[in-house]
């Protein structure tokens, strides 16, 4: 662990424009602390963000970063990581970015098991467009576009990840600063794709899934005295599909799963190329066509 990087090194000089009290502050603080605590430096970190309130995170953090188009943050992160596996790649998005427009990429990023950390700031609402139903909104949650509720079951991102072969599936809460940081640290250190679905309440547009709701209802599976074993897939399935309760902590972790980099032999920084001309041995490619 590097001792000379502090979490404030990951903070940019831009002041966030999130609403006062927004859960995204806590979510981002945990990310910065976890990055510093795991020995990463801004020079070697790449943050990718999508569109929505969550998408602004690249501006408020200090690292190499790209703020991309809506829903495609995971493919960008995948490209960054494959091109330079030495970089710490963290992808941030919201529930709309990740589970609506980007849900196809989500499933495949989980399957690929590439070593990136995906933090979803889940507020169960579209905030930046001023309060429409999101894929994780409750079915009876009334909004301007769903005045009688969506009448559809919310997406269960943890279940999607589990069914797609996820090797690290966690849920966190922006307000539990210490636990949130610990969970993201575990996610960073996991060798493979890590999902941290982070409840990040919207204080302006969501009066149902509030700080109070999560504080009162979330059951923490980790922390001190915990007896929960995240390597038990059957147990994880029961928790993830439990319709009575919601959990936080690491619900499932498979330490034996091979990361994409391992299974595909991806290593080395692709930015390094021979600038004198074609790479050595290129003439063999021509000979093949004789």
């Amino acid at each position, binding site marked *: 662990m590097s001792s000379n990087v502090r979490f404030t090194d990951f903070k940019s000089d831009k002041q966030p424009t999130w609403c006062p009290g927004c859960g995204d502050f806590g979510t981002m603080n945990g990310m910065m602390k976890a990055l510093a605590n795991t020995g990463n430096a801004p020079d070697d970190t790449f943050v990718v963000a999508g569109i929505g309130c969550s998408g602004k995170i690249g501006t408020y953090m200090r690292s*190499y970063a790209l703020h*991309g188009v809506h829903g495609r943050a995971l493919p960008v992160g995948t490209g960054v990581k*494959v091109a*330079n596996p030495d970089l710490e790649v963290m992808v941030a998005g919201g529930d709309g970015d990740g589970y609506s427009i980007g849900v196809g*990429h989500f499933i495949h990023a989980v399957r690929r098991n590439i070593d990136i950390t995906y933090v979803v700031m889940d507020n169960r609402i579209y905030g930046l467009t001023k309060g429409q139903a999101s894929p994780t909104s409750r079915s009876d949650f009334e909004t301007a576009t769903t005045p009688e509720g969506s009448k559809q079951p919310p997406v269960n991102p943890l279940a999607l990840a589990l069914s797609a072969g996820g090797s690290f599936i966690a849920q966190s809460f922006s307000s539990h600063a210490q636990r949130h940081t610990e969970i993201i640290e575990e996610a960073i250190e996991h060798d493979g794709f890590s999902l941290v679905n982070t409840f990040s309440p919207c204080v302006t547009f969501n009066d149902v899934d509030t700080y109070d709701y999560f504080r009162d209802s979330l059951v923490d599976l980790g922390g001190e005295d915990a007896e929960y074993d995240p390597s038990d897939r059957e147990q994880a399935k029961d928790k993830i599909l439990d319709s009575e309760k919601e959990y936080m902590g690491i619900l499932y972790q498979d330490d034996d799963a091979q990361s994409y980099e391992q299974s595909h032999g991806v290593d080395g920084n692709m930015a390094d190329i021979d*600038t004198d001309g074609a790479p050595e041995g290129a003439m063999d490619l021509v000979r093949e066509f004789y």
Partner: protein
Amino acid sequence: MHEDLNWAIGGEAGDGIDSTGKIFAQALSRAGRHVFTSKDFASRIRGGYTAYKVRTSVDKVRSVVDRLDVLIALTERTVEENLDELHDGSVIIYDGERTEFSDFEAPNEVTGLDVPLKSLAEDAGGAIMRNVVALGAVCEVAGFPIENLDESLEKKFGGKGEKIVENNKKAARLGAEYVEEEFDLAFDFDLETTDNDYVLLNGDEAIGMGAIAAGCKFYAGYPITPATDVMTYLKGRIENFGGHVVQAEDELAAINMALGAARAGARSMTATSGPGIDLMTETFGLVATSETPLVITNVMRSGPSTGMPTKQEQGDLNQMLYGGHGEIPRFVLAPTTVAECFWKTIEAFNLAEKYQTPVYLTADLAMAVTEQTFEPEKFDMDAVEIDRGKVVDEDDISKWQNEKDQFKPHAVTADGVSPRAFPGTEGGVHMSTGLEHDELGRRTEDVDVRVEQVDKRQQKVTTAEEEEDFSYREFGNPDSDNLVISWGSNEGTLIEAMDYLDQEDVDVRFLSVPYVFPRPDLTEDVEAAEDVIVVECNATGQFADLIEHDTLTRVKRVNKYNGVQFKADELAEDIREELA
């Protein structure tokens, strides 16, 4: 005796048409003959009609013609589809046990050779080798020494063991012997061999090879006809050069992965066709606005929508030139031959990095999936040059930092090009975004900064126009009053069409334009000519529109959009009509 031979094998998808055709094309190439191939194929795995056609000569061949001399017909439909191309003296090889031709009105002097392909193949070790029996029969008919097939058979079947190779060689000889013994005919063909060395490859392969030569290490793509061969070429080869191929879940992911890799500093590419370009257009503006170097290959096929996926068209010009909301600086390169696919790919990577801009590299079906022979010197790896543009390292990063030591990835400069720091570079930390941004890459709606950033991105194109040589390739009589202009893959066909025109004392000046944007200014050339004809494979004349726009002069148009590439004789006729 014909100077060239036009040969084809046709049957149903699943009959092994493609691999059989390739074996023969390779044998011809190795025997020092030039080869130009074309394919009739449908978007299906089995059934239907598919054919692999080969035109071969000791001289360079650049196009297909409307003539078939020797045809292996595995189905009746193969004959039906090619009736117009058969002529007196053509030879059809077929297996009477599978195929009957009684109903066709083929020209009188077409010779049908009923060769028991299947049973001879069984004699050699298995019915699966019936196409090779047919190739042996072709060698006998065409006066092509059968030993020339051996090396191609070894290359094709070597991995399956010596026994299989030997069986195939035997199958070929049984086919040849059968023709020799059973038919007392003197055929009009004698395929001369030479000591020349040629390479045989298609446009997709040339693009893939060009990418590796250019130092491309990352490719992400989603399978689509006719661009898939780029990915299959790279897979298994790029890894030997430290690269990697990702098969993405869709084209949206493919371009975003390629974008991510490019942000990390890799030379990065994706390839697709029209429907994929539609999806990638979502991210195209981000690539340009974040000033990320990226090569996007578009192997065009017939559109719109799903169109005719296995048919030729040059219909995406406007899409590449104008696609995406807002105003997006870009480059559009359109190589005019398979060999040029190699060089333009390398140029595309250099332009992308020098100007930190997306580059469309476009080929089309007619060039991408058909094998052609070239002198190996056309792919001289020693001549490859790499220009990575303004990459800065730790030592000179401070020049590009502001007073707070923040790096400026979108610094406003005279030439419009900003410094580029790869992630991992100390002091180079920065972000970028699809939002309008300041020099630091941070969102802004400041009116002055907005104008400054739009202008600097546009300035890159202006700088490139000044510094690069976006020229054309010229053929024919430079003083002719008849000016023919084309873009992309029609070059070879036009050169051969000029031979036909020459026979009738019609001369033309032909400009083959490999740059769609920025492109050469043809105003003087157009003004100097009496007649100007723009030739392209689309219905509306998209390139002709650009020429009219540039030169303020009306031009004549020759368009073809039935899904089949131009043929030299037909194109000569079209041009003659326009000139009349």
